[in-house]
């Protein structure tokens, strides 16, 4: 078991290293990267200042080495626009994004499992078709458009929900106001992963139902409800944990758009600001940190899965 954990840990480390390489070289070798700043309209001194600040007179590989050494120590450079440390800007925004995604996972997993199970049990019947059809529609609607329509309906027309912001925090925190701010972003973000969870649960459930031991349970005369909810569901849900790992990058991608629509001050709206103002160190830092979050959560999901599923546990 320890070997499995160490092995997975090593893989994650290699992955993380490759991610930093990909982003760093993409940013620094592309024609519009930091080196293009030098070509812009600027006086000789200004240009020199930028070159010194970014170390542009060094070869790119040396700069990567320096960046990596600093990054390991928690220093991701300073933001172009505000001159604050990048890590500080990210850390002030990251909690909001994590908040949003955690709520979304809770909501979409619980709803997704319910619909997935219904769809599997009623396979080929009307309920199954309706759920299937709705899933495809959910995958096809642009979330930013649906978000706009939601704002039009629930904020402008009906005045039920606030159209943007994260709500008052700190001393003014109020649970109801907080939840009201959370509803629309969570619903919109859920849309991006819900169809996958439904489909995955459905196929997992169908696979379990076709197993021999389920036939045995049926043969010994157990009631259908007992067969489905006691024997089948428990085993069908185990693989569903793995899809959470797969969906986390999707959720974070979706969070960028959701945060932009609802003025949610998380890391997604930060990267849009950073991209708009060409704040390279910040763009780089955000991408690295967000991928770090993905890799760590995937690692956790795998470890949890290996603990729950005895088959993986024993092989490992």
């Amino acid at each position, binding site marked *: 078991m320890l070997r499995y954990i160490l092995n997975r840990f090593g893989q994650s480390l290699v992955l993380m290293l490759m991610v930093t390489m990909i982003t760093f070289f993409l940013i620094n070798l592309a024609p519009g990267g930091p080196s293009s700043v030098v070509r812009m309209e600027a006086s000789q001194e200004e240009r020199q200042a930028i070159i010194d600040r970014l170390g542009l007179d060094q070869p790119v590989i040396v700069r990567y080495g320096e960046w990596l050494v600093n990054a390991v120590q928690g220093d991701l450079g300073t933001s172009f626009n505000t001159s604050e440390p990048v890590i500080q800007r990210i850390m002030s925004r990251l909690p909001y994004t994590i908040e949003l995604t955690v709520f979304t996972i809770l909501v979409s997993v619980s709803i997704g499992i319910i619909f997935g199970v219904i769809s599997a049990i009623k396979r080929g019947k009307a309920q199954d078709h309706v759920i299937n059809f709705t899933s495809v529609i959910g995958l096809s609607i642009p979330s930013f458009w649906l978000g706009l329509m939601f704002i039009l309906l629930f904020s402008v027309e009906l005045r039920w929900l606030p159209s943007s912001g994260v709500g008052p925090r700190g001393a003014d925190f109020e649970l109801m106001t907080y939840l009201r701010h959370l509803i629309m972003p969570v619903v919109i973000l859920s849309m991006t992963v819900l169809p996958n969870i439904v489909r995955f649960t459905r196929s997992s459930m169908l696979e379990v139902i076709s197993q021999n031991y389920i036939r045995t349970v049926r043969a010994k005369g157990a009631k259908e409800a007992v067969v489905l909810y006691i024997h089948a569901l428990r085993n069908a849900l185990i693989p569903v944990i793995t899809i959470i790992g797969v969906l986390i990058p999707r959720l974070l*991608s979706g969070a960028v*758009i959701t945060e932009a629509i609802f003025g949610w001050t998380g890391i997604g709206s930060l990267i849009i600001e950073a991209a708009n103002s060409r704040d*390279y160190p910040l763009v780089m830092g955000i991408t690295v940190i967000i991928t770090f979050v993905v890799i760590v959560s995937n690692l956790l999901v795998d470890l949890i899965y290996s603990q729950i599923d005895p088959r993986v546990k024993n092989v490992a």
Partner: protein
Amino acid sequence: MEKIVSQQLDEQVVKPARPPKYTFWTGLRQNKVAFGAFIFLVLIHLIVFIGPLFWSYSASEMTTSGPLASWSWQHPFGTDDIGRDVFARMMYGGRITLLVGLCAMLFSLLIGTVIGACAGFFGKITEAILMRFTEAMMAIPNFFFVLVALTVLGTTPVMVVVVIALSGWMEVARVVYGETLRWKEYEFVEAAHSAGAKPLRVLVKYIIPQVLPSIIVSGTLMIAWAILTESAISYLGLGIQPPTPTWGNLLQNAQQYLWTAPVLGVLPGAAITIIVLAYNFLGDGLRDALDPKFIKK
């Protein structure tokens, strides 16, 4: 006896190895939803690409009907905030959006196929490097990668295509990798090797054609994704810039007039949804058509 054995061999090896050519089309015809989606897509593409040739207004021309005119025979969707014909703008915007989706899909299939096929076919160190690279790319949440790449590559339509393709090839690479691993063990591939064909020829001539159906399915679903991504970045103002219309930036522009002229905001969003929906139905249908479980029926 020999004949029976060879027949059995035929059934076991040759049949799955060489799927009959008509499966795609017949499979598609059997699936009513997918077939409907296909016909619908052909129609929409005709309207969007050929329509402007017959339409009396262009996308940039200001008409005499004034701004925010409601619908009429002259302007079926009315006019926009500075009096341009919305129907014309939707058609031109659709051209760009669909073309970007199509090109991004093709480019991304190319990258994914080359990487996946090389990794699966050559194995060893090539496989290790290419597949680790693919995994690393998959770990970066795709929209973050898109934003990073757009920041440094710019927002011209060509770059938007490149960026979307660069951020979406991994799923294709994984599919092609898995399929290549499977097909390279077959006898006809071995036969080609022993007949003296060079490795690259074996890969391109014997393995890729077997993988092609899966690539087509991925491609169909990929277009849907590419269109959604393009419109999302245009909506955020980081994609193709006005005055070049796309469905995404038409929607962004319409946002300020949502209250006075909701149709301006509803139309591009509805167009994106319907097109993406049709591609998704088509992709799902094609996948079912390829699935051996469905073919047997």
